[in-house]
């Protein structure tokens, strides 16, 4: 009971989704429990940087505030198969160990699928971007503050006037 309580206290929220932290945070391991992927703490923080380059903090929260990179990892780990896992890990290698300037450059290049980049790099980035956006738009933060999702609309108007065309 106590242990469960303890875990509850350290739930990590990725865009509003509760994630269990890894029980034994061995030196150098990712901070959430993953079943299939082996992600190091260094990789994790690089993913956080990439996500922030995709959706930065402005006057509203960005990817790091919402832990969107953890959302990406969670979805990748649970909802995709070994092939996608390999592709992701393979592509991620090319983003590791870069300083912030080179990382920003690679992200920009990968985003436009610049000629010369490896297939894996581009596929990794596509996935990373897709799920970061997905996590953002489906986050509690965005759904309750920015693009509001209603549980109960209680109405339907099929001829709703668009304010200014």
């Amino acid at each position, binding site marked *: 009971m106590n242990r469960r309580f303890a875990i509850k206290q350290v739930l990590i929220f990725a865009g*509003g989704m509760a994630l269990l932290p890894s029980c034994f945070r061995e030196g150098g391991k990712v901070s959430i429990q993953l079943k299939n992927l082996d992600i190091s703490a260094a990789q994790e923080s690089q993913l956080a940087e990439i996500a922030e380059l995709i959706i*930065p903090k402005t006057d509203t929260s960005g990817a790091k505030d919402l832990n969107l990179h953890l959302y990406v990892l969670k979805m990748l780990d649970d909802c995709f198969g070994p092939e996608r896992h390999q592709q992701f890990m393979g592509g991620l290698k090319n983003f590791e160990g870069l300083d912030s300037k080179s990382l920003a450059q690679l992200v920009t290049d990968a985003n436009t699928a610049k000629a010369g980049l490896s297939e894996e790099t581009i596929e990794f980035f596509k996935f990373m971007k897709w799920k970061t956006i997905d996590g953002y738009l489906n986050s*509690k933060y965005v759904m309750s503050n920015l693009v509001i999702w209603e549980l109960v609309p209680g109405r339907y108007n099929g001829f709703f006037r668009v304010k200014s065309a």
Partner: protein
Amino acid sequence: MSNLNIDSIKEHTYDAIVIGSGISGGWAAKEFTEKGLKTLVLERGKDVKHIIDYPTTNKYPYEFEHRGEPTFAIREANPVVSKCYAFREDAMDFFVKDQEHPYVQEKPFDWIRGYQVGGKSLLWARQTQRWSDLDFEGPLRDDFAVDWPIRYKDLDSWYTYVEQFAGISGNKDGLASLPDGDFLPAFPLNAVEDYFRNTMRDKYIGRHVISARCAHLSQPKQIHFDQGRAKCQNRTLCQRGCPFGGYFSSNSSTLPWAEKTGNLTLRPFSVVESIIYDEKLGKASGVRVIDTNTKEVREYFAKVIFVNAAAINTNLILLNSTSSRFPNGLGNDSGSLGKYVAFHNYSARIGAEYDGLKEFTTDGRNPAGGGYIPRFRNLLKQETNFKRGYAAGFSAYRNTERDTSGLGTALKAQLLSKNLGPWQVGSHMMGETIPKESNYVKLHADKKDAWGVPLLKISVDYDDNDAKMKKDYLEQLTEMFTEAGFKNIQVNDGGQAPGLDIHEMGGARMGHDPKTSVLNKWNQLHDCKNVFVTDGACMTSTSTQNPSLTYMALTARAVDYAVLSMKKGDL
């Protein structure tokens, strides 16, 4: 059996037994209990109590572990049910998982099931149209299957009866192919759906676009409040179970009503293995049930038995009910039991964009889903190279335009933009398929399920008629979309296997002649009069309309007949 020593037969005896608590079983339960019969409803799955057992009903999208998406492991383990559009995190527990209840696909057949109190009535898309004589006269006119032993006039008042209680929204459209019902106000078409309706009316004779008719309380009446239900709040999260009782399900409507009479006994976790035939009495005396928790075998007895296990399972139960009188399955003197299974062809869709009417969008949600195009092919006479025809869904919607090509602050601004894109329009076909002897279900010779019941083999496929019909649908809808000025038309002939339409029918069809059919015009086994089948197994042909409203009407009618017969001492 073993239990009979302990529990007296009397304790296990009811006036009526209903097998299955889904859409049709719920109606049988309501009708019997209201007429004062002590009724036992046997349900193989768990209990699902209205509101209490809808665990996801008030969740926000971000409260689902994977934002609604089934995990890779779940999809791998459940390749069949994963194909169903509604098999998502919010309603996954109301679907049967492939491995828990295997069956043998002699040909690919995506059998989608809901095993719990309420059956698939929790999950259905609630589209409800009456059938007309153009459907009931179909087999006779177009020479297939056997003649239906009933006509529209036999069901008209029963449709009204069930519509009033269930609550069906729709317009009186005055169409011969789709008789009007006793409706609550329809959910209106939106700007582009309405535009398409008007365009079709002007450019074609006999092609209509109407508001989809659906089992939602758009404006509840006293009878609905009496059931404890309230106005539909347009949440469109219905498959989770609706806390308002806004849509019709057995759980929100018929079963609680039956319970209030004090005549209902509902037993979840009870798989009916077979129906017991009493050679001396010359009729069925009860059912044999396996408790899914204890695997204990029990027998229950009644004067009349309604089989409402959903079409294919009803076939299984009847086929598995053998005796020296019925070595090939209960009521199977004709040898047609399990055959002439048919379904709806949902395998094609078409989408496009519309540049006009940009001054409008929609606000809120439409639980009816949009518009409905009733069948227009071969309606009054045979005029194409295929038999019968198709109905179609039609809907239009506008999304916010989200350009995701950029990065950083530019991307962020795009994601939060409220600019609307063009209208998107879409349609899917709902084709009638022809019942054939070669489309059948059978018991497996030796493979059994966890309760010792033989597994089912399913051998059901499309044919050439379906292919021609699909081609015609795509051609005609392309033409209609073009006429309406829709752009960027995309057709998709999907290639999905039969079954995914979830409108499987037949196997114990109704007919005049006991030599070629299993049930008579009262849904009664020709050869065992106190057993009735009023779910999809009874259907002689499939029409293009959704089937469940017709199961409800047939059920209420058959119970009425059964009770009258019992009073007369005929059963």
